[in-house]
């Protein structure tokens, strides 16, 4: 059977169907059905990986964190109430993974690195191993942004979240989210005009 082409008349219906299907898959997965979860994984993995890749600028680390996100999602499925889209929920887990990672990195540096060597760990000059093939200069400039500003820019300008949603995802004030975005855009403008 040929798939029905999407047009103005049936777009809303298709969207409702997609949401309904997602809810059904979530219900299945919540009952322990890993095949339902597999379908949710298939639908969302590329988007979550792209987010992790931009945040980490390291394909290997991005893959590891993407895996962690889905394992955490599986472990916490009973907490998902369907109040947001499943992708949004996955993004919130991914953001948390990175925030936790950053905190752990700090502890790691304090425990692990001898003070004389700290400067040698500076990531400046480190070339990101990107796998996005378009707008490489822009992707590189994004990767150099301060961590919080980068997170807000990716969530707002690329993923399309609003400041209210970002404030919930990152546990920050709406005003802080706006300030980070403003700073990120300003730095990008300056970098790209060089």
């Amino acid at each position, binding site marked *: 059977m040929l798939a029905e082409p999407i047009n103005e008349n049936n777009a809303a219906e298709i969207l409702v169907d997609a949401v309904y299907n997602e809810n059904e898959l979530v219900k299945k997965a919540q009952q*322990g059905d890993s095949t339902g979860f597999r379908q949710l994984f298939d639908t969302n993995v590329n988007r979550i990986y792209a987010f992790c890749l931009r945040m980490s600028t390291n394909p290997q680390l991005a893959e590891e964190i993407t895996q962690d996100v889905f394992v955490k999602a*599986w472990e916490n499925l*009973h907490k998902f109430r369907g109040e947001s889209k499943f992708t949004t929920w996955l993004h919130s887990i991914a953001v948390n993974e990175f925030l*936790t*990672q950053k905190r752990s990195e700090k502890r790691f540096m304090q425990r*692990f690195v001898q003070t004389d060597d700290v400067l040698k760990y500076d990531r400046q000059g480190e070339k990101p191993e990107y796998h996005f093939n378009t707008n490489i200069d822009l992707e590189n400039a994004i990767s150099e942004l301060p961590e919080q500003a980068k997170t807000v820019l990716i969530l707002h300008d690329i993923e399309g979240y609003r400041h209210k949603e970002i404030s919930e995802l990152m546990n920050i004030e709406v005003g802080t989210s706006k300030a980070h975005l403003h700073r990120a*855009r300003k730095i990008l403008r300056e970098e790209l005009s060089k």
Partner: protein
Amino acid sequence: MKCTEFEILIDDYIEGALSSSEKQEFELHMHDCESCRKNYTETAKLLETVNSLPKSAEPMHDLWENIEFRITSGSRKKIFTLKNANREDYSEYKENYKKNKYFKYGAITLIAAMILIALLPSLFFNKNTPLLDKVMTPYWKVTKLSGITIAAANIINDIDSLKVGDWLETKDSSRAMLNVPGLGTVTVEPNTKLRITKSENDEHRIDLVYGILCRFKVSYRN
């Protein structure tokens, strides 16, 4: 309106979040001030490009296999709770979990016993072997990622281990991954030399002779 105010309001203007009077004032300033007009044009152009960046990317490897292993192995946390599963499901899950647990621990004990038997001759008959050191002292696993990596004066093949006092060296085009017991992994970048100086339960230290260690991932799971 001052230029500083204009700059602050650019984002809100683009998002359509300004009131009609603010919008009017903003547009009036943009009309009169060339510098701010340029600022706005550049921001709008930047946004257009950023918005067009891809939202998805395909991982290089199939991630599901590992995820499936992790969510179906005994290491996962419970997935059934009394809130979202009926009692029959929960009892069945609990029963299976117990069976898996006994099977898992039985298998682990058996494997440990086999390894111990295999190691006994070298432990007792040649106490100076590196193997004994590896068994008796904490060691760090080192994995070759690319090129020639020298660990403790030997070129490593794929995976080797380092203990306190050993050093690791990467060349122009070689990289390695170092696993710190209980902490996480560190990537040893090209042209780097380091020495393990301390490895105890709560403290691990290295002396970086030269080079770069980066892209570390710290384990934070319990």
